[in-house]
């Protein structure tokens, strides 16, 4: 009896009435990571801006997001209230892990944020510009060691693309994968490697402090406030962005898809989201609809090609 009463009290105190546009966002990663914080920021803003009355975040970590993706495809099909966060890393992981499901199995809604990749050398390095680095790599690819994130990730792919664009055999690059969380940065600062490659945000504070020299960024155009050429400007046709997106379940009707897209657009345009982006230092790269789908298809194709060139995918 006491417990029934307890249950009822808990229910009264905590019950949340269900609304039509409730959302359940899956972050296919552990709590605390990039996708998780994207999902949780979406949750906060969607609730605060009144886009949705109740947003839940679930974490399904594993294998670059492909474990979560597989679960999402099988369990969320046809359910317009389910969303999944993902990103460029997933594109590579689907290929390298030979994942049975791919981004073609979900309904991509929009790209939300993104970050350019930056190439740096230690401040003490003799290499002064990106051309110097690429020339050194062309002369002896093994002697130029690159410190970056996980094998087959966006950093690795960028080095592969750069090698290819510069006419260097991509299988010959000496890419040293570090586990994230600053280990690569430490190796660069400690002069352990020739060059480093990672998200711009990770290197910028070091560059500003003068401990690293920024050689180039992988964005389409120069980035405001960043004193470095793009790879394109330097003559290497490489544009890479490490983006994060949100996708909906497969098997939605057009109306359902339009409703979800409208909610996400409201989110992306909201003051709360813009403030969150600014606070976290994320760039707004909102892109939706057919443009996003075309962009996604193009990137999947380019990534497949370069992963084959590096030898990570057969």
């Amino acid at each position, binding site marked *: 009896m006491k417990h029934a009463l307890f249950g009822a009290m808990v*229910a009264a105190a905590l019950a949340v009435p269900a609304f039509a546009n409730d959302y359940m966002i899956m972050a296919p990663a552990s709590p605390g990571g990039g996708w998780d914080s994207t999902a949780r920021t979406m949750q906060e803003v969607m609730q605060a801006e009144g886009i949705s009355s109740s947003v839940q975040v679930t974490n399904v970590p594993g294998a670059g997001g492909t474990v979560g993706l597989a679960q999402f495809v099988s369990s969320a099909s046809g359910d317009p209230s389910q969303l999944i966060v993902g990103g460029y890393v997933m594109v590579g992981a689907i290929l390298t892990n030979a994942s049975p499901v791919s981004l073609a199995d979900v309904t991509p809604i929009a790209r939300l944020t993104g970050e350019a990749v930056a190439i740096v050398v230690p401040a003490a390095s003799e290499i002064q510009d990106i051309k110097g680095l690429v020339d050194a790599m062309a002369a002896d690819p*093994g002697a130029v060691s690159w410190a970056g994130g996980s094998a087959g990730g966006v950093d690795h792919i960028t080095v592969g693309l750069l090698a290819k664009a510069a006419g260097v055999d991509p299988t010959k690059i000496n890419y040293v994968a570090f586990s994230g969380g600053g280990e690569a940065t430490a190796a660069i600062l400690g002069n352990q490697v020739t060059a480093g490659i990672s998200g711009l945000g990770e290197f910028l504070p070091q560059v500003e402090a003068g401990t690293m020299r920024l050689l180039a960024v992988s964005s389409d155009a120069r980035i405001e406030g960043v004193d470095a050429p793009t790879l394109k400007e330097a003559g290497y046709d490489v544009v890479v962005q490490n983006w994060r997106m949100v996708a909906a379940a497969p098997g939605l009707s057009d109306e359902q898809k339009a409703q979800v897209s409208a909610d996400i657009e409201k989110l992306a345009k909201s003051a709360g989201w813009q403030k969150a982006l600014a606070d976290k230092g994320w760039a707004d790269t909102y892109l939706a609809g057919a443009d996003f789908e075309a962009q996604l298809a193009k990137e999947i194709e380019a990534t497949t090609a370069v992963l084959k060139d590096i030898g990570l995918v057969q």
Partner: protein
Amino acid sequence: MTPRGAEGRRPDGAAFVIGAALVALGALLVWEGGRIPNKQGYAGVGPGDVPWLVGWVLVLLGFGTVWEGWRNPAPPRPRQQAVPLVWLLGGMVVMVATIHWIGFVLGATILFTCAAAAFGERRFGLAVVSGLVLGFIIYGIFDVLLQLNLPAGPIEMLIFGR
């Protein structure tokens, strides 16, 4: 590794089984190390080399274990009772198999009750109620307040509206 036991005593049977298991595990690693593409790159040590090495050491340790078991008699081991083990492992397995259907609270109740039973509790009603209370408290704190997202089932849907 110095032999100590008197000759002629019964060898330790368990050591043979453990040794065989180690050899099997080692063989699996050696096989895996040889099977995967050993992309050595500039390091000269590829992803297959360490499994190969660890595998061979395990094989050696397996033979060492058998050798030890042959030389030394079985040491005294505590008597084991099967019933509590069945309760405990059964409770775990049932919980793992069903938690995604029945939710955290009932899963925790099953686990708690089975564990209590394994340790000799016979007042099942009391154990079930305590398990439920514990489950509710944990779910309330971690899922509802701290957003940890524990598996939800019918009870959680009904009471917490998830």
